């Protein structure tokens, strides 16, 4: 056996957007084992629900993650609506879908940029982020903020989108589609990108199922599982197509996310076309009593919220299982056998969001 070395990768590393440490056990240039160390960014948000009332905690849930923020608040609201037996108006469900899907496009574009950055492809990084800026501007125009939309509330949504706003969404979606048509095929067929991603960080279907992979990581390994299938919000009416790949490598994960971006745009178009008129929220009276497990598909996979109320205005307990947490075990299975230079690409390919994992 050759000599083994341990290389600490992170918590500060140029390609890592957020702090996580992987202790890489190396044999020459090859990774033999990876040991994660987390806990660099714990903020105690779950504890804070005991101090704020359940309406204020919508904003708290939104701040769990800085990328899929809106979807966190929607999960939280859906959970409370279930406990309190509130049925939200149809228009609110459609608006949640539209904002949610636009958010997914922004998250995937951000990810594509970061992935390209991890293998030094600055052009793709800048191009993806330039497109993302169009999405963020759209979010600001329709919701009032670029990232922390703050539009979800228990009982529906706070803000309506006018007909002019809906037309604006369609225009932006068309412009984005044009941009994607231009650069996504280039990215997917680029020789150097293929060299860095094809066959790198493989995760078989069995491994993905066994280790509980979620989201695009699972779908890239051939598991056609997406929580949107259950038809929450307006997904039942709008319908969508699961994007899957079978190779299970970094390239497959990239392909799945690129395919999903197109699918998101289509869903937004269909949702705008089928947008029902009417109220956007219903008044909610009383305090939550009982417990619920709320689930929802975020850009990184399925998130699970456990909420428990005891009749007081503050919740008794909130517990969040974020998709990145579920994808850490698959990540550790992808790393052994790869070269040190591929580690950043593989880590980025699961789209890690450590802040929400540690909350």
């Amino acid at each position: 056996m050759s000599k083994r070395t341990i290389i600490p990768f992170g918590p500060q590393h140029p390609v890592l957007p957020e702090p996580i440490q992987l202790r890489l056990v190396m044999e020459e240039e090859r990774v033999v084992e990876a040991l994660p160390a987390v806990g660099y960014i714990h903020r105690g948000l779950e504890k804070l629900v005991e101090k704020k009332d359940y309406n204020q905690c919508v904003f708290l849930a939104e701040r769990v993650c800085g990328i899929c923020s809106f979807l966190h608040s929607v999960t939280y609201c859906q959970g409370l609506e279930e406990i309190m037996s509130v049925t939200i108006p149809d228009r609110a469900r459609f608006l949640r879908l539209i904002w949610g899907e636009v958010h997914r496009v922004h998250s995937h574009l951000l990810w594509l940029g970061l992935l390209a950055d991890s293998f030094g492809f600055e052009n793709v990084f800048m191009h993806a982020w330039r497109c993302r800026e169009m999405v963020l501007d759209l979010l600001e125009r329709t919701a009032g903020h670029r990232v922390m939309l703050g539009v979800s509330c228990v009982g529906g949504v706070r803000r309506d989108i006018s007909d002019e706003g809906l037309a604006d969404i369609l225009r932006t979606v068309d412009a984005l589609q044009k941009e994607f048509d231009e650069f996504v095929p280039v990215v997917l067929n680029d020789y150097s990108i293929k060299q860095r991603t094809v066959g790198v960080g493989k995760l078989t279907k069995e491994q993905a199922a066994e280790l509980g992979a979620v989201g695009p990581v699972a779908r890239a390994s051939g598991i056609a599982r997406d929580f949107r299938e259950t038809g929450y919000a307006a997904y039942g009416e709008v319908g969508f197509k699961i994007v899957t790949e079978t190779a299970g490598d970094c390239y497959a994960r990239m392909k799945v996310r690129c395919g999903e971006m197109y699918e998101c745009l289509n869903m937004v178009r269909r949702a705008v076309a089928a947008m029902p008129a009417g109220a956007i929220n219903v008044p909610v009276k009383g305090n939550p009593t009982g417990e619920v497990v709320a689930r929802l598909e975020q850009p990184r996979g399925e998130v699970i919220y456990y909420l428990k109320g005891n009749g007081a205005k503050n919740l008794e307990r909130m517990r969040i299982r974020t998709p990145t947490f579920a994808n850490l075990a698959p990540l550790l299975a992808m790393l052994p056998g790869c070269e040190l230079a591929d580690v950043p690409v593989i880590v980025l390919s699961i789209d890690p969001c450590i802040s929400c994992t540690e909350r």
Partner: protein
Amino acid sequence: MIKRVFSNLFGSPATRLYPFTRREPFAGSRGQLKNDIAKCIFCGQCQRRCPADAIVVGKKPDKSWAFDRYRCIVCGYCVEVCPVKCLSMDPKHGD
């Protein structure tokens, strides 16, 4: 893609020279909180609802309304609950 290459080479940058060039804020954007203090009845609703504890309302007799901009998370919840609608969101950031 060739078109994009040329526009990147010869076009203007995608970014602005902030703070010299500023983009006009979008209407309806949540920039900063403003209070029309003449209308305020110092009821304290905004203080109770604010998730970030950014507002302190002094009840009668001294009647004061203080707001810490650096605590505010511009959620707009206080604007929604204010009974006399004296609070509003200014789309502008800063000054």
